[in-house]
Every structure is written in C-alpha cells, then in structure tokens.
C-alpha cells in the first residue's frame, strides 16, 4: 500500500478546472516532485494534501485512511511554505516549539526535540533569533525544522527554493537531498523549476492544465518524454512534427514539415498517416563544418543563423535548407575557444536514430 494515494481528484474554481481527475501514489521514503508551469494545478494539489483545500471529487488517502474529514491540524503531514510563513512575533525556538505545544508535548521533552530539529537543519545556536534577523536560507531551514519537529509522516514543500538566489539554491538542494535521506520521510515537492526537479527527485509528475502529463523517474522524463508538452517543458528540445510514414516497433520514419524524412528508433508502433513528433535534445546533434565519415542516419545542411555564447556551452541555431531551425549545442571544452562557427557559416547537421525520441500525438 502506498503511503499517499490520490484517487481521481478534481478541483474546480468556477469554470476553471485547477486539478483534473488526478491519480497518483507516493511511497514511503520517496522524494516525489510535482513539476509544472504556474497555473498547472500543482499547488492546488499540494494544498488539498495539506488540507487547506478540499477536492470537488476524488479521494486522498494517507496510510489507507481517507483524509476528507481531517482538517489541516489533524493531518500527519507538514508544509514548508514558499514564503516560509515563520511567525514574526516568535523567535526561532518559539517557531519550532509551536507544533510541539499544539501537540501538547510535555515541556520537559520539548527542549531536546527542538535542539534535534535545529541540528537536522544545522541551525544550532539560533534559538533566540527572530525571523527578521535571519537570511533567506536560514529562514528556510527554520521552516523545515518547524515542519520536522513533530516527526510527520510526510513533508510537503511548496517551491521552497524559489525565493533564494541561484548559488544558495544549489547548496540547499544538496542539503535537502541529504536531509531527506537522513530523516527518511516522504517529501512531496512542488516546483516549476525543471533543474531542481531533475536533481532532487526520485520520481516526478509533470503537470499541465490540471492533468499529469507524465509520471516517471527523472532520467526517463528527460530522455523519454511521453508528450510534446513534457519534451518542451523539460530542458531545451527540438520538436519535429509531421505525418508518420511508418512506425514498426523498432524504427519510425516521420515526414517532418519543412525538413524532410527523419528516422528515429522507437519501440512504439503506429499506423502510417497519423502525426508524430520527434524530440531531439540539442546536445545530441552533431554539427560540423564537414560531413561525417560514413552515412549518418539523419543528415542535413544548413547555415548558422544565430548563436548564443553561454560560457560552458554555445548554442547554435541552424537554419536548414527546408526552412526549419535546428538548435544544437557544443561544449566549449577546448580552452580559449569561444565558438566554432560564425553567423552565416555553412554547417553539416546530423544525428543517429538513437538520439531522438518518438512521440505519437
């Protein structure tokens, strides 16, 4: 039995369906992420798990028990809010002690538990500080300590890193992974940031317009996006669409509009005539001045239309003769070399059948 079982949950606001018949299960000890653009329903779903909102249809079971009748304070889950929601009139210790007071933990026992929680987030010695005396990262840690101090069965995190700057975000991401391993409870993590999601999670549910587009491990989400939306939302991706000429369960051939026939390896079979999309990550494309030796699976000629130097890599947008723009990426690993091509250079573009991923629409 899964720890958290969401069954056919729907939530509407007037005419707008925020969460549309969503079902998913979260296992004990899992780091589970709800990923999607703003307005996709991920936060609404999280709020329903926490109890701040109720589904219009469907059930939410925790340890097999329906939560419909439990107000937030009776649910053994804790939330880390995006704004941290630290009580400004209480010290760090007061904030962390609050859930213990509410749970009527004897005061003799409290001190040790507060210290343990602060140790978990490496904030010992901050007991007397007030929230306004803390940095963003420290507030974040207090919020987590407050959520963990009563040993909930599950932690809900609502974009906890969104308000922090990039460097701190990376540090805290690593800490979150370690913390989750240490305390061993399930995390349900909401974010719109795909890098965060890919780096942190055991499994990711990509949401769009209230529905789950794909629920999978990070590497599967990235490498084998099931839908156009997922391919496009996670990382950069060239999406080539057109009528399928054939798809026989090992190889597919798609007549891509403005490009021509493209071959891609696939386990899917589909009838000819339907539309298919090939998702192709920029880093998997070879671009070079001269043609490769041998016969590549997919081979086109074009000219560099513009380029974007990003430091570690340079992104080239190549206009293929048919008119399509292909985005390719080259690592600038050779020291001192900022770019391999200039705008207008003729280039040779190719990739093997295994590079792309085939999606039937």
């Amino acid at each position, binding site marked *: 039995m899964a720890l958290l079982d969401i069954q056919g949950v729907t939530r509407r606001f007037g005419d707008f369906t925020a969460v549309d018949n969503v079902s998913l299960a979260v296992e004990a000890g899992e780091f589970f992420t709800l990923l999607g653009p703003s307005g996709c329903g991920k936060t609404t779903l999280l709020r329903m798990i926490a109890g*701040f909102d109720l589904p219009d249809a469907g059930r939410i079971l925790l340890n097999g028990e329906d939560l419909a009748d439990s107000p937030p*304070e009776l649910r053994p889950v804790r939330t880390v809010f995006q*704004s*941290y*929601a630290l*009580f*400004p009139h209480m010290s760090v210790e007061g904030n962390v002690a*609050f859930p213990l007071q509410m749970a009527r933990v004897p005061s003799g026992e409290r001190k040790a538990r507060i210290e343990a929680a602060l140790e978990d987030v490496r904030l010992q010695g901050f007991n007397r500080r007030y*929230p*306004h005396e803390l940095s963003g990262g420290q507030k974040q840690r207090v919020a987590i300590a407050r959520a963990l101090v009563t040993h909930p069965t599950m932690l809900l995190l609502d974009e906890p890193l969104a308000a922090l700057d990039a460097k701190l975000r990376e540090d805290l991401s690593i800490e979150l992974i370690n913390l989750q391993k240490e305390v061993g409870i399930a995390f349900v993590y909401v974010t719109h940031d795909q890098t965060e999601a890919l780096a942190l999670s055991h499994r990711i549910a990509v949401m769009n317009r209230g529905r789950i587009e794909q629920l999978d491990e990070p590497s599967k989400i990235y490498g084998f996006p099931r839908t156009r939306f997922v391919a496009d939302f996670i990382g950069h991706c060239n999406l080539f669409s057109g009528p399928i000429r054939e798809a026989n369960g090992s190889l597919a051939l798609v007549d891509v509009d403005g490009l021509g026939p493209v071959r891609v390896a696939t386990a899917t079979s589909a009838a000819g005539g339907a539309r298919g999309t090939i998702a192709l990550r920029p880093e998997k494309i070879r671009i070079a001045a001269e043609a490769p030796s041998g016969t590549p699976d997919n081979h086109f000629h074009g000219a560099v239309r513009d380029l974007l130097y990003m430091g570690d890599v340079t992104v080239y947008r190549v206009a293929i003769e048919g008119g399509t723009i292909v985005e390719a990426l080259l690592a600038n690993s050779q020291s001192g070399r900022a770019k391999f091509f200039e705008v207008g250079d003729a280039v040779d573009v190719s990739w093997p059948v295994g590079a792309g991923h085939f999606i039937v629409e």
Partner: protein
Amino acid sequence: MRRRPAWLWAAAIFAYAFLYVPLLIVVVYSFNDSRLNAEWVGFTFDWYRTLASDDQMLKAAGNSLMIGIVVSFVSTVLGTMAGLAMHRYRLRLLPILIVAPIAIPEILMGVSLLIFFVLLNFTLGLVSVALAHIAFCIGFVAIVVRARLAGMDETLTEAARDCGATPASAFRYVTLPLIMPGVIAGALMAFTLSIDDFVITFFTAGAGTITLPLQIYSMIKISVTPEVNAVSTLLMLLTLLLIVVAAKLSPTLLPSERETTP
C-alpha cells in the same frame, strides 16, 4: 530635495497657525486670572481649583469615563470580530452596516436612535448613550483591524493550522498577537470617539444625564468661563496622552514584521 518657494512655506505656516492658535488660546486662558477670556491678567490655578470642586462637572467626567471604557471594550470586541469576518469571508450585509454609520450624517444616527429608544420605552440615560456609541465605534475598530489583517500574510494562519493548531488556537497564538497593534489602536480610537461625542449623545442622553461634552455644551451656551478652558485643557492632555500611548505601543508590540515578509 527641491527648493520650495517661500510663499508655500508662508501658506503652510499660516495653515498650521490656524490649526493650533485657537487651541493654544484655550490652554493659555485656562491659567488666566480673569473671568473674561479676553486679556491676559495674571497666572493662576484658580480655574482648576474651581473645576475640582464642581460636582456637576466631576459627575459628567465620571460618566464620560465610564461610558468610554465600556464602549471601548465592547466595540473593540465586536469591531475586531467584524474586521475578521470581513477579511476572511465574502459578506454582503456586514460591510455596508460597518461603513454606513461612518458615512451618513451623525445627526441621523442621533435622531433615529432617539426615536428607537423612546418607542421601545427604553429609559434614556447612560445605557442608551453607551449603546449608541458602540454602534458607531464598531465600524472604526473594524476598519482599523481589517487594514491590519490585510497587511498580514495569510499563510501564517495556514502555517499555524499546519503545525497542528485548531482554528481557535491559530487565532489565539498567531493572528491575535499579529493584529494586536490594530486592536489596541481601535480601542483607543473608540475610547476617544466616545469621550468626545456630542451630537449622538445629545439626542440619546435624555434629560438629567450628563456627559463631559454635554456639560461643556450647556456651560458655553450660557457663558464663556475659564473653567471650560481648564476642563478643555485637561481633556486635550488626556487625548494627547492616549495618542502617545498608541504610537508607543504599536511599533514595540511588533518589532519587525515588516522586514519578515519577503
């Protein structure tokens, strides 16, 4: 900073003088050794002594104080509830009833309450005055409290619930401490409004019941005597004190929540 023309300063100074000179004259003449509020004769505390032995005035002051305290307490409780209700729920009737007593001419409330009490055979007196004062003070408290709530991060209440607090504890331990400055400001406002009110009191007090403004009114209708200056000076001092208390209390109660909202 731009240079401001001299005439702007002159106009502003005139306006401030216009606001303060009359009150200053009242205070200065309360120490004047003359029955006439016309010329400075000499310094005296006589009018304060007269005041201290004026039983009628003391009774009026006692009544006003008592009404003020009761009104301030009841309207703060009811006004805070109204502020909370308006902040948290979508209501139709309550917001109208909150704003209307403030928006309509004061005299309307005075006369309508007069009709109301008389038709109900309710004896006009301290109780009817207090009931009337509460009716117009609730709105002021509710507006102040609501403004305070609007400035509060609503996730804090949710966080309290999430930490295991029932709605009542969430209010008691999180919401109430955070809106306390607004509640105190509202209470002081209600107290001042009640102590100062003349129009509504005038209609709802009935004969024989006297409050400070009513006593001042009947005295100045008859003649101008420095005893009025003396009581006015004391009343102004009291108001000033309350304002200072309110200003001192509000920021210290919540040292810093402004900085904590990102």
